[in-house]
Every structure is written in structure tokens, then in C-alpha cells.
């Protein structure tokens, strides 16, 4: 890494060279390695397509994960099926690995739902929007795992900016206090909208953990192998009753904060150039090619798979219809509620009055 203070675990150099690490290592089959590549390419394809769809007015907004694919895919692929992910709105790579359908990821941004999938089905929470809130949910979930005597682990995702929030720090306290089986996965993508991550003080974020009584580790977030290795260790630690770990994945938000954002107002183009050379997908591709684990025909095939997926998304998004107006009254409560019933009836009557008038 360019930054001298950074001491991130790395298993793959930006050039795709495999390097050893004294503490962290990982052995993957060729199929697994190709799988990671495929995940990252397809996630990027979803991301690009969604960005395009937003420009065309089909989505209200999109928060691209461009550049963060290795951090997201590496950590999520480290999880066991019964582990539970608590993502934010930018974790399309995580939801992808948890088996959430691409179209379901877009439901919020299409403005037809505030959720999009059943968390228990994918063992993956909704895209959380209030910064930091879901980190406490993850800790609570992990406490429940512990009370159940189960061996699942909760993985909570959040950004560098979120490290400032009271909720995130309280989550550290609760996790330490209950020695909860949780992994705190912080993607330090260098920016919280327009705020550079070093605004929080002259210290690396992973070092926060020690003061709360559990280990912190910094990993090269653009190195999918290192992320996977580091996350596996943290998961095992949690699973075996040794409590939380904070992982800081050092990465970069290559796109805008969201499609509404204009990063040229606050950051220099040169920065982006530097990070382009560390692209997580190119890095793995170079390794796979050099090692003969995959060849051009494989890469092309994934490319085509991506195009097909993009087409499905395009068609699917356009076909998504808004829910019925009166659905806003559904599931506000799970038990009967007089006020809701009354207001639903009023709305239906009011809407019917137009139909009458029209007919």
C-alpha cells in the first residue's frame, strides 16, 4: 500500500503475484478460485448495470460497490451457510454471495420495497441505511446464537465513516462484554461521502479493537484471497467461543458515493488512477491466468454470463410493478390494529371515488 501506516495482510500483490504470510494462509481448489473470480465479475456487472439503469431513470438511486468486490466477496465466501450477514446498502457483493437474486437487490432502489428479501431464507439482513444501526443488530443476533448454544457467527458490515457512530462503538462494548460470536467487517474505502477516512484521527481503524479488548486486523481489501483468509480465521475464532474480531479491509470506493454524488467536488482524479492499478478483479485474473487456473475462454464465458445477467436485470427491472397503494398498511403490525384498518378503508374508499367518477 502506498500509505506507510498501512500494514495490511496480503496474499496476492496488485500484480497478481502470490505471496506468503506468516499468520494467514489459505488453500483453495482451482474451482474455488475460479468461483471467486466469477463472483466478482458478476457483482461488478450487476453494479454497472444498476448504475446504467439509474441513469435511465429506472432506479431512484444506486450505491456502487465498484472496487470493493474483493472485500465483499472474500468475506462473504468465508461464511458458513448458517452464518448471518448484516450488510449496508453498498454490499451487493455480500448479498450476491448469500444467494439474494440480483433483482431483489434492486427492489429498494426501484422504490417498490424497503426490504427486498426474506432474511431468514438467505441468512442475510436487509440493506441497512441508518449508519451503524445494523452493527448492533449483528451483535444481538450473535448473543442469541450464544444463548442457543449454536455455532453460527454474525458478520456485520459497515464503512470507515461508521466507525464514528455511537452505535458501532456500543456494538464493540456489547460484543466484548458478552464475548459474542460476531465479526466486525469494516470496509475502509477511504471515503464517507466527501470525508476522507483519516479525518477520524491519525490512526488506523483496525487499531480501535484492542482498546475494547478484542483483536483487530487490517487486510488488503482488494485481495480476495487475503480477505477470505483473514475472515475465515475471525469466523473460527468467534465460532469457538473466543469472541469478536474487527477486520479492516483497506480498499477504495472507485465510484461515486451514490449516483446522486459528484466526487469531483472533493477528491482528485489521481487518487482513482492509483487505485485502478490495484483493481481486485484484474489482480485475481492475472493470478489465474499466470497459474493456468483459467484461460481466455473461461474469462469470456464469465463475461457472457455477465451479459446475460445484465439483460435479465434490465428486463426484470422494467417489469417490476409498484405495489398496490393500500399495501402500505400491510405488515405495519402483525396483529389486528383498529387504526390501520380504518385508514386502509378510508384510502380504498377515496381511491374508489375516482374510479366511480371515471366510470
Amino acid at each position, binding site marked *: 500500500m502506498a500509505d506507510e501506516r498501512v500494514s495490511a495482510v496480503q496474499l496476492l500483490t496488485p500484480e497478481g503475484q502470490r505471496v506468503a504470510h506468516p499468520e494467514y494462509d489459505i488453500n483453495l481448489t482451482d474451482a474455488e478460485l475460479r468461483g471467486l473470480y466469477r463472483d466478482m465479475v458478476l457483482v461488478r456487472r450487476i453494479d454497472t448495470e444498476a448504475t446504467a439503469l439509474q441513469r435511465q431513470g429506472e432506479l431512484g438511486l444506486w450505491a456502487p460497490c465498484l472496487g470493493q468486490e474483493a472485500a465483499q466477496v472474500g468475506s462473504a465466501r468465508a461464511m458458513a451457510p448458517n452464518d448471518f450477514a448484516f450488510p449496508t446498502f453498498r454490499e451487493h457483493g455480500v448479498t450476491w454471495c448469500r444467494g439474494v437474486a440480483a433483482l431483489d437487490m434492486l427492489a429498494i432502489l426501484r422504490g417498490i*420495497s424497503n426490504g427486498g428479501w426474506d432474511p431468514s431464507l438467505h441468512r442475510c439482513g436487509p440493506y441497512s441505511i441508518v449508519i451503524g444501526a445494523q452493527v*448492533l443488530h449483528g451483535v444481538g443476533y450473535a448473543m442469541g446464537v450464544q444463548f442457543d448454544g449454536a455455532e453460527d457467527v454474525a458478520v456485520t458490515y459497515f464503512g470507515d465513516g461508521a466507525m464514528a457512530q455511537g452505535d458501532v462503538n456500543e456494538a464493540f462494548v*456489547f460484543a466484548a462484554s458478552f464475548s459474542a460470536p460476531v465479526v466486525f467487517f469494516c470496509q475502509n474505502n477511504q471515503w464517507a461521502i466527501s470525508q476522507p477516512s483519516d479525518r477520524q484521527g491519525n490512526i488506523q481503524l483496525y487499531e480501535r479493537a484492542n482498546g475494547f479488548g478484542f483483536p483487530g486486523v487490517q487486510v488488503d481489501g482488494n485481495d480476495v484471497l487475503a480477505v477470505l483468509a483473514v475472515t475465515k480465521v475471525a469466523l473460527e475464532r468467534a465460532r469457538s467461543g473466543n469472541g469478536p474480531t474487527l477486520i479492516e479491509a483497506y480498499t477504495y470506493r472507485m465510484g461515486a458515493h451514490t449516483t446522486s454524488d459528484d466526487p469531483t467536488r472533493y477528491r482528485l482524479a489521481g487518487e482513482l488512477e492509483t487505485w485502478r492499478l490495484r483493481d481486485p478483479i484484474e489482480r485475481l485474473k492475472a493470478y489465474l491466468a499466470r497459474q493456468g487456473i483459467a484461460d481466455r475462454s473461461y474469462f469470456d464465458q464469465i463475461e457472457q454470463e455477465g451479459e446475460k445477467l445484465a439483460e435479465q436485470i434490465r428486463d426484470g427491472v422494467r417489469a417490476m410493478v409498484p405495489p398496490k397503494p393500500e399495501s402500505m398498511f400491510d405488515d405495519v403490525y402483525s396483529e389486528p390494529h*383498529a387504526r390501520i384498518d380504518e385508514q386502509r378503508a378510508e384510502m380504498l374508499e377515496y381511491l374508489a371515488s375516482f374510479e366511480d367518477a371515471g366510470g
Partner: protein
Amino acid sequence: MTNLTMVKAINAGLRKAMERDPKVLLFGEDIGRLGGVFRVTDGLQKDFGEHRVLDAPLAESGIVGTAVGLAMRGYRPVLEIQFDGFVYPGFDQIVSQVAKFHRRMDGAVAMPITIRIPYGGGIGAVEHHSESPEAYFAHTAGLRVLTPSDPQSAYLTIQQAITCNDPVIYFEPKRRYWDKGEVDESQSALDLGAVADPWRARIVKAGSDVTVACYGPMVRTCLEAAAVATDISLEVVDLQALAPIDYETLVASVQRTSRLVVVHEAALSGGVGAEIAARIGEKCFYELEAPVTRVAGFDVPYPASRIEEHFLPDLNRVLDAAERVMGY
């Protein structure tokens, strides 16, 4: 029937709920070995263990936020906020998460969380220990709000709040904690629906001239007023549920009396009484012989304890309002 204080009645209700469902957990500051600063959870950690009655770190957002996760894992957390004035650090998790999660997930995730909050004045406490924040929660879609007024209703409604699959903010009138009353402990929440629906208001004293709508700590005050009111017959309605409010019962009462006084400790402007006045003004437009009149705390921060008696509605202010509505 046993004669219990409200503290003991809630304790008994919590015990019943915990016996019935192993997923019920109590979580809060100092609720374990100490039994809570009001002793509401006294003895429960001893009997149910440290994994059913959990002492929490001193962080209210943490308590509410982790409860959301516990609920996602299938638990039924019952939280204690130590005092009314300390619920605000947890406000975001309550309003943006607890209240909205079920709707957000199109019903796929339930939030059966009960948040117990001792509230209101009258115990001579220092600042932040005598607040009446119920209007904030009653205005928040996705929450239910309950408040008992006597040991029997506390014993029943705490169980019903816990059994309810929706989040319930459960306000305990702390100045009535030590009031005693008969409690029928044989009643179980499983067959309560018929006996006592917590979402229905209760006419705790019938009368014919003025309906007095009240809840929690003010119910006793209004009953006392009704008892001494010699020339006006007051009908006292204990709302019990502040969200949703049972307008059926209330409207029926006002249709009989044609006059309504609403009483609460919380600040007047934007209090629960405002909503009641607005609704009854609509629903009983032709029946009302006088404007709906509110007796409430003033629009000031809760005052120092030696003058709180002038902030809190008392028997005289209730009677004064009753006389005023009779004067129209």
C-alpha cells in the same frame, strides 16, 4: 387473589411470561442481581439464570439495538429502561428499527420486543427521572403503547405486551409502583383476550355528566376526583392503550355524557390529549356540549421536584376542568 404492589404484580407477570415461553429474555441495566432500581425484576435472575435475565452495559441504544438482533434470532426480549429520561439515547433504534423492521421486511421478520419504561412524576426525583415521553411513541407508526394503572391491569397487560408479536412500549407509572391492589394470579395471558383486552379502554367508574379520559398515573387521581365530586357525575375511562387508542369505548362514553376532559402529566401541546381532542372533536361534533378540555403538564421542562406538584395535574385541577365544561 393476592394483595400486591404494582411492582410485585409486574414481577409476577414477568415470571408468568418467562415460564410460559423460554424465548422471553429480560435485558436492562442493573436488572439482575440488584433486581432493577425499582426491584421490578427482583429474584428473576436467581430463578431463571443469567441467560434469561441479562445485565446490560450502560448504553440504551446498545440495549435496544441488540434486542433487534435477538428478535431476528427468534427471541422475545423484554427491555427495561431505567428511567423515562434515559430512553432518548435509544430513540433512533426504537423509531428507525424496532418500529419499522416488520413493515420493511414485508412481514418476514417479527419484532416482539417489549420496552418497559417507568414514567411520570410524583416521586420527588431529580431531573430526567420524571418524564412523560409517551406522545413521541404514540406518534410513531409501527409501535404499540400500553400503560397500566393498577396492580391487576399491570399483571395482565405486561404479559399481553410480551405475548404480542408487535413491539410494545410499556409505560409503568412509577408513582403508582407501591400502590397495592388485588391481583388474580390465576389469570393467564393465554385466555386473557376474552377477560381483559389490553387494547380496549376500561370504564373504571361509571358516571353521567362528564367523561374523564386518563391513563397510567392519572387514573387514580381522576378516580379520587370522581369520588369527591359531589354535584358532577364523572365517568372515568382508563385508556390503557395509547396506540392505538380505543375510540369505540371513548366515543360511546362521550355520546352519553356530551363532555370530555382529558388528563395527563405530559406537556399539553402535542400530548396524547391533543389527538384525543382532535378525534373526539370530529367523531362527536354534534354531541359535544363543551370543547374537549385538557388538564396536563405545562409546556416547560419538568421542574425541580419541590414545585412539581404545580406541574402535575391533581384532583383540584381535574375538578376545575369538570366544572368548566359543565359551565358551557
